[in-house]
């Protein structure tokens, strides 16, 4: 036993806290892949998972019953795990994306990306960040999110980047459960009472305008989400058909309630979450998620 650990076995009860989720994984960027494009792609998918995870975890202790509380917490945990790997992958591919921290800070790259970027630096879809509503709202949000994410991860299993391919292969198994959970609850609420049906339709109306962003074209490295439209429509139309809920018409999100982001006064006209143009809901979410890490940029946990 070396000196660092001598005589102190109590620490072993807790694990080490910070560690590299890609420890020992070959993170060499494959030939022919542009490191900056790979990092940008992983950030986009990692941010989707991180922000969605944060919103889902806000449900903890607020769900209609204990089982659903546990389900939502489990799905948040799966997405947090995906976010960790994807952010770590982005940092390993292109260290330039990682925010600078004080010299000697022990904060690993994935945490620097999660906790030390401002709203306009996040690349998540706005669907993930809008504020939580009622239970129907989380069902609809998770359905739209997981239908698109599963279609994307299925394709990414054969990504030329070996790390992204491995994350996708594992993520497919997890998101399959999320999508089934959301689909079943969609059906239950649609066929439940007048009140549950009304709430479901209200949530769908509010969230549907954000659905297009999940399938917005992306150029450069990676599977272009725009090519997933066919698969996504097959699954969504199945849910609408079985539940007897009408598929909403496609219209862009209303700009009402959209405020300048990050306190900079800048707003990208026509921009989306993928460009860093977020709704007013993201900054408060980040403030809560990041406050402790930012207060102690050199802290050890």
């Amino acid at each position, binding site marked *: *036993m*070396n000196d660092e*650990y001598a005589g102190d*076995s109590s620490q*072993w009860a*807790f*694990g*080490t*806290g910070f*560690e590299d*989720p*890609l*420890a*020992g*994984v070959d993170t060499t960027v494959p030939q022919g892949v542009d490191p900056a494009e790979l990092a940008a792609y992983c950030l986009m998918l990692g941010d989707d998972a991180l922000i969605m995870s944060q919103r889902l975890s806000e449900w903890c202790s607020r769900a209609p019953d204990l*089982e*659903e509380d*546990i*389900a939502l*917490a*489990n*799905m948040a*945990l*799966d*997405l*947090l*795990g*995906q976010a*960790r*790997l994807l952010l770590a992958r982005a940092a390993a591919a292109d260290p330039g994306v990682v925010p600078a921290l004080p010299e000697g800070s022990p904060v690993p790259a994935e945490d620097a990306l999660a906790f030390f970027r401002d709203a306009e630096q996040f690349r998540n879809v706005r669907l993930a960040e809008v504020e939580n509503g009622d239970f129907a709202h989380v069902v609809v949000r998770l359905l739209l999110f997981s239908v698109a994410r*599963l*279609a994307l991860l*299925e394709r990414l299993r054969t990504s030329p980047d*070996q*790390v992204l*391919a*491995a*994350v996708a*292969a*594992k*993520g*497919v*198994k*997890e998101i*399959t*459960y999320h*999508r*089934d*959970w959301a*689909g*079943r609850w969609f*059906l239950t609420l649609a066929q439940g009472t007048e009140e549950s049906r009304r709430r479901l339709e209200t949530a769908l109306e509010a969230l549907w305008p954000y659905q297009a962003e999940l399938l917005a074209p992306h150029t450069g490295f990676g599977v272009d989400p725009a090519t997933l439209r066919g*698969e996504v429509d*097959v*699954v969504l139309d*199945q*849910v609408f058909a*079985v539940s007897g809920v009408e598929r909403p018409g496609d219209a862009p999100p209303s700009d009402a309630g959209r405020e300048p982001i990050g306190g900079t006064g800048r707003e990208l006209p026509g921009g989306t979450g993928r460009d860093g143009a977020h709704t007013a809901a993201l900054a408060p979410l980040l403030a809560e998620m990041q406050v402790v890490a930012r207060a102690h940029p050199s802290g050890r946990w």
Partner: protein
Amino acid sequence: MVNARDRAAEVARQVRDPEMPMLTLADLGVLRDVELDGGGEVVVSITPTYTGCPAMATMRDDLVHRLREAGFDRVEVRIVLDPPWSSDWISERGRAALREAGLSAPGPAPRRTGPIPLTLGPARSAPPCPRCGSAATRLTSEFGATACKALYRCTGCQEPFEHVKEI
């Protein structure tokens, strides 16, 4: 005399899962490899059951701790992501240990080709009750106290039980 690599592997194989301590990491199928490099460092490879599994750090520390106690001063634990863990990797001994502890062991993991179908009904067949053996069981939730388990209730003996999910 047993060589050092086999001795290190045997120590690693005895380490238990922090969340399901009736199973060793080997029986759970998360211990993928134990090697001894030329310089005497033990290199252990483990794979997460689920991406967000919060027990990975504890597993790593338990492995390092136990190997150090056994005289292996330098230990490196590596993460393996590919191929992803499957419940099919739980050993027969592990399945018996799960049943002994009142948990339901997973059936064969789904093997799919083509797009994954959406399942709007309870398509997976319900496992028999690990306590009374009754086939009359009902899914309570596909999510349980850890990422790898679902919750069921036996309508025979009325007891709830946990089922390790097929993935």
